[in-house]
């Protein structure tokens, strides 16, 4: 991701995050950014840096999950010449290069416990010493940490220090997953379409029409903004939205439902690809499309199962069809309601009641 990626979004939670950034960027208090993978935690951190009075200084990122413990330690704090085998010359750590700037600690939830206590010490005292050095250095790095894990849970399991958590969590910015804010999707599509079109000027990709946009907005994006971004990049090469959609994991496959599907399949002693679970076939897709008209499929399976009730769905489905039939007949008879009631074989009163329930009104001429 380039450093200039703007924070895109028009949904209420995203507007609130932008407002929060605007209010706290000057304070340089420790910030914890949480959210699923791909929601844009680093983009939020960069926006904080850009809006702070440290924007001219460094934004240094380190991924705590990507490096083994000893390497992470030497990356953070640096080392003196001869500190360990292979330390041929002195090397400054990220705490030093981020001085007066921002130190972005990505995947803080994966930081080993030993390093957590060292980190806590630096945050408390503002001092650190490089490996192999007996000298303390002052650092004025603004620490912004991010994680997709539930740190409260990790505290309970004793894999994350509670005192470090509270010290990082002075301000918390929680970014909701993309499926909870589909109104952000058109702006994101627009942005990445333009961006990748300029990178692939020979591409024949066309902007999504309203139908494609609707499909994009109703997809649940388990990989969030990063997945959407990759899709549009793919479009530049494939030049076909249909092919892009073909390659998307299908709608029903939210992390929660897939886990329960597997356990159910195991309970039933059947293989995952048994015909009882045709989620990856055309029929499965059709089924999910129909169900999603009446049930919000983007929620967790627990909530989903609470929402599903045949009685409720029967009512929703019959209402939907009844409304269309009533409009169809009324249009045929020039909105003569007594004629329509006769054709529909219901009483005049029932028809009037249904028209008001479904909010069916004659066209204003």
């Amino acid at each position, binding site marked *: 991701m380039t450093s200039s990626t703007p924070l895109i979004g028009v949904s209420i939670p995203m507007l609130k995050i932008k407002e929060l950034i605007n*209010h706290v960027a000057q*304070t340089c*208090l420790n910030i914890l950014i949480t959210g699923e993978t791909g929601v844009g935690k680093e983009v939020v951190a960069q926006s904080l840096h850009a809006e702070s009075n440290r924007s001219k200084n460094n934004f240094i990122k380190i991924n705590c999950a990507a490096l083994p413990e000893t390497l992470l330690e030497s990356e953070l704090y640096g080392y003196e010449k001869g500190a360990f085998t292979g330390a041929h010359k002195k090397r400054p750590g990220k705490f030093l290069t981020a001085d007066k700037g921002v130190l972005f600690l990505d995947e803080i939830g994966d930081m080993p416990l030993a390093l957590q206590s060292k980190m806590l010490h630096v945050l408390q005292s503002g001092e650190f010493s490089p490996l192999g050095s007996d000298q303390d250095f002052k650092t004025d790095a603004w620490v912004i940490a991010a994680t997709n894990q539930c740190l409260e849970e990790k505290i309970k399991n004793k894999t994350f220090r*509670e005192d470090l958590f*509270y*010290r990082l*969590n*002075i*301000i*918390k910015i929680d970014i909701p997953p993309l499926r909870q804010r589909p109104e952000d999707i058109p702006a994101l599509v627009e942005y990445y379409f333009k961006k990748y079109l300029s990178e692939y000027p020979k591409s024949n990709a066309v902007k999504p029409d309203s139908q494609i946009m609707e499909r994009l907005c109703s997809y649940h994006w388990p990989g969030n903004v990063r997945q959407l971004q990759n899709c549009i990049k793919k479009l530049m090469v494939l030049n076909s939205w249909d092919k892009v959609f073909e390659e998307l994991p299908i709608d029903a496959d939210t992390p929660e439902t897939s886990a329960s599907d597997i356990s159910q399949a195991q309970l039933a002693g059947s293989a995952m690809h048994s015909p009882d679970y045709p989620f990856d076939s055309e029929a499965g897709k059709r089924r999910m499309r129909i169900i999603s008209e009446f049930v919000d499929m983007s929620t967790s399976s627990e909530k989903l199962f609470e929402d599903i009730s045949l009685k409720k769905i029967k009512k929703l489905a019959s209402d939907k069809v009844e409304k269309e039939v009533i409009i169809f007949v009324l249009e045929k008879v020039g909105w003569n309601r007594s004629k329509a009631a006769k054709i529909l074989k219901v009483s005049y009163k029932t028809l009037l009641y249904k028209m008001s329930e479904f909010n069916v009104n004659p066209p204003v001429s």
Partner: protein
Amino acid sequence: MANAARLLIVDDNEDILSTFYEFFNSLGYEVKTAVDGFAALKILRNKPDYFHCLITDLVMPNISGVGLISIVKKEYPDIKTIAMTGYGGHPGALASEARADIVIFKPVDLFKIEHKVAELVGRTED
């Protein structure tokens, strides 16, 4: 009390918030409330020289009480700050570090807090 002291009370538990509101209001304080640190900060930025005392919970969504106290101490140093915590020692210690005037542990005795508020606000008016 003669001159109504103006309080900003912040807690993400609306029951606690309304209890505090009723209590201080009935004693003649002018009370504003906010459900989290960000809402409180927006109120403060709107009325920078208005409040005499901030009473805040510590563990809250978006801006924590510790964050709020740090900002207040830097930007509005005349406002007295009282931190309330129900989450063990860590947030309380951080609030002291952020130079909260008083840190108290939940459950709180409203009369005791009122006493402290009167003391703190009295000091400013001296």
